[in-house]
């Protein structure tokens, strides 16, 4: 061809050459290898298979180098999570406090409710008369009518101590509430004066904050934390204003934003704090940084696919290598020696054929799971087991071929020239079977990749942190992933399907190409 293009403008010599009848012009001599290659490349489907395989190799082995991410590199995203911070409820029921050394039990409390609802100022219980004195708005003092001693108070506005863990004394609460519910600014207990500001804060005369009165109960949800009075006051103000957001500047001057939700069914407010958390960027949709998104561990999907391809292809090769070597040796021995050797080896082959390999692999996988075998070691075991289970079919193939080959003249010749037996088998017989071996290995790699992927899919083959196409698809067992994150499992499945398909197509093409009887 290149000669022709070079001599394009010189027409005369070409014509001369075309009409020459020299042997090398009429008969093209091709080596058997070239013939096979020619026949192979004429098969368009097989060439497609070869193209797919080339792509897969580039994708897995070169892609893994090119990609900017590592196999196990995890990605994070900043997530704004609304964590529940506090709860608030507007008190609508009477609460009670018993005076020191007085009994004010729940039955009496119930009687108080009845009395206040009927606007009675006395009630009797078990022949004892009690007085209910309305001291202020929604604030009652309960006394024994006989002796006029106060046994307790009932109130709706709640007095909360400013300091955590401090208990307020009854007299203090009584007087504070009395003053608060009547709109007074000051009150006295035991000679000491106290002030109440308009928000309900109670402080001593020298300005020390003591307590805080409010109709709202604000409680922290996070254990071990305490809400400052300022926070409670501001929150209550916002609640009364019906706001749904609330910004609070704490003593260090840092602004915090809170979301306020009113839950109508339980009549309380939930205050959520928006906090920024760094989380694994799991199941991120495909984007410029991650072309195929990220998986459940926040790893780049495309990179995982590349490394998974490496694992699948390498395992396919190694397993086939093991089973081919074993198969060639056993098959060669059986075919060459025949008689009892053949019989023995073929019965072993029968036995191996009969072993249910998939269930066995599952059981071994589960046992390795239970024993926490290191993932790398596991991969080695997996290859060894698969290779060891795979040799019988190769042995059977080789044996069948060699049985007929050994009767041919060239074998008599080797015998006559005194070639060693091992040489006769592996140098003279086996090379004649190489076409069949190549076809069988090519198809076998496809099968091995499926087996490995199936095991990994069940979680019993290649394990995290190593990627394999099988264990990438494993996530589809989660129905949510199946429904919503196609990019997690469809690419891996497609690659797997294409690779196995390509191996089979190439194997098929090779079989046809090696077949000398093939017409086209």
């Amino acid at each position, binding site marked *: 061809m290149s000669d022709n293009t070079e001599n394009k403008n010189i027409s005369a010599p070409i014509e001369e050459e075309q009409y020459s009848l020299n042997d090398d012009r009429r008969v093209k001599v091709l080596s058997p290898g070239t013939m096979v290659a020619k026949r192979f490349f004429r098969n368009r*489907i097989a060439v497609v298979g070869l193209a797919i395989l080339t792509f897969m190799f580039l994708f897995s082995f070169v892609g893994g180098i090119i990609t900017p991410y590592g196999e196990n590199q995890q990605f994070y995203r900043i997530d704004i999570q609304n964590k529940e911070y506090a709860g608030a409820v507007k008190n609508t029921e009477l609460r009670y406090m018993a005076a020191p050394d007085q009994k004010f039990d729940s039955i009496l409390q119930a009687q108080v409710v009845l009395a206040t609802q009927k606007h009675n100022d006395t009630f009797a219980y078990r022949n004892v008369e009690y007085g209910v004195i309305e001291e202020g708005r929604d604030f009652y003092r309960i006394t024994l009518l006989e002796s006029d001693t106060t046994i307790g108070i009932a109130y709706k506005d709640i007095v909360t101590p400013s300091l955590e863990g401090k208990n307020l004394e009854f007299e203090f609460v009584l007087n504070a509430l009395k003053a608060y519910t009547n709109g007074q600014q000051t009150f006295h207990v035991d000679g000491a004066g106290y002030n109440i500001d308009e928000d309900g804060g109670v402080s001593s005369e020298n300005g020390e904050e003591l307590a805080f009165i409010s109709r709202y109960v604000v409680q922290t949800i996070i254990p071990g934390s305490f809400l400052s009075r300022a926070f409670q006051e501001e929150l209550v103000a916002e609640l009364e204003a019906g706001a749904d957001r609330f910004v609070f500047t704490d003593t260090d001057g840092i602004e915090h934003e809170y979301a306020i939700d009113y839950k109508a069914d339980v009549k309380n407010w939930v205050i959520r704090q928006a906090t920024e958390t760094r989380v694994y960027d799991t199941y991120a949709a495909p984007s410029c940084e991650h072309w195929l998104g990220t998986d459940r561990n926040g790893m780049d999907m495309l990179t995982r696919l590349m490394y998974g391809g490496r694992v699948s292809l390498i395992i396919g090769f190694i397993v086939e290598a093991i089973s081919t070597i074993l198969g060639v040796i056993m098959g060669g021995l059986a075919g060459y020696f025949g008689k009892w050797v053949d019989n023995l080896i073929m*019965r072993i082959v*029968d*036995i191996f*054929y*009969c*072993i*249910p390999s*998939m*269930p*066995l692999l*599952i*059981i*071994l996988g*589960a*046992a390795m799971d*239970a*024993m926490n075998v290191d993932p790398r070691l596991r991969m080695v075991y997996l290859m060894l087991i698969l290779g060891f289970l795979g040799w019988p079919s190769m042995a059977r193939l080789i044996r069948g071929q060699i049985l007929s080959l050994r009767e041919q003249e060239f074998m008599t010749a080797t015998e006559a020239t005194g070639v060693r037996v091992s040489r006769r088998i592996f140098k003279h017989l086996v090379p004649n079977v190489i076409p069949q071996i190549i076809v069988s290995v090519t198809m076998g790699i*496809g099968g091995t990749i*499926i087996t490995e*992927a*199936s095991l990994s*899919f*069940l979680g*019993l083959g290649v394990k995290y942190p190593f990627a394999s196409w*099988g264990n990438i*698809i494993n996530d*589809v*067992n989660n*129905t949510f992933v*199946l*429904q919503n994150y*196609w990019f997690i*499992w*469809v690419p891996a*499945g497609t690659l*797997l*399907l294409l690779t*196995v*398909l390509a*191996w*089979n*197509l190439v194997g*098929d093409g090779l079989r046809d190409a090696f077949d000398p009887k093939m017409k*086209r």
Partner: protein
Amino acid sequence: MQKYIIKRLFLAVIIFFFVMLIIYALMRCLPTSYIEAMARQKSLQPNSKSYEEWMAQLTEMYGMDRGIIAGYFHWLGDFFRGNFGDSWYYTVPVIEKFNDTVWLSFWMGLITMFFELVIAIPLGIIAATKQYTKTDYTISVLAIAFISLPTFFFIALLKLLFSVKLGWFDLFGLVGRNYEQLNSLGQFLDKCHHLVLPILTLVVISIGGLMRYTRTNMLEVLNADYIRTARAKGLDEHKVIYKHAFRNTLIPLVTIVGGSLPGLFSGALFTETMFSIPGIGYTSYHAMVAGDIPFSMFYLAFLAILTLVGNLIADILYAVVDPRVRIA
């Protein structure tokens, strides 16, 4: 013939003996701590026996206190007396659980096989008769594609399409939510409805192999001399193919189909598991993953027997169907 069958049977028994020896040895090679841990875990299940009872049963059943060979004979003796022990995972006798589940798998397998034969054989023959045409290429590539299809991926795709997008079928299970309220016909139809996708899966993944096999055999027959003779004497093509060629193609087909009959009982591990169909495949998968040794041993032995019986049937059929085969 009789002598041949007896010889084959004898061989099958010997092979079974060694297969189970290998499997038994593997089971024994599992570290004892693992078995003990499993027994302990199982004993914590509700309605379960105590740990000591499990261990005693296990030791007794598998001859754990003996050497591997002696223990193996002990286990084999029990096996042939029909004493399979109690399943750890299901806490019922193994044979009971097996009986409960195997028939569902069998019916699934039978329906699958019917569709497989009805679809694959005609397509294989068409491909062979139209060799090197577009039809042939399409069928051949489809066959390879079906063979290459990873079951689990195909199932996931089916589920996405038919269950999620179209909503025609449930994602899991053999029976629907309102199964209990249906009458017996409704219950039957409900089960059928839930089996559509699993059977579709099984048909698609099994069809490719048979299609290729039919095509190869048909091509071989079509190249035979008697076909040339038939054509030469002027028979029409239809008659050549369906009377002369097809009948001869049937010889290997009958053999392979007959050989796969016992396989109907072996269950479909992936398909049943992914669709949560309580057949033998699903049941044994969970038993195996949970380290249920009695059930696993039984299932492995069962599969080995099925394979052996299948080979036996194939060999015998081969001799029966093809009168040219002479038995040595």
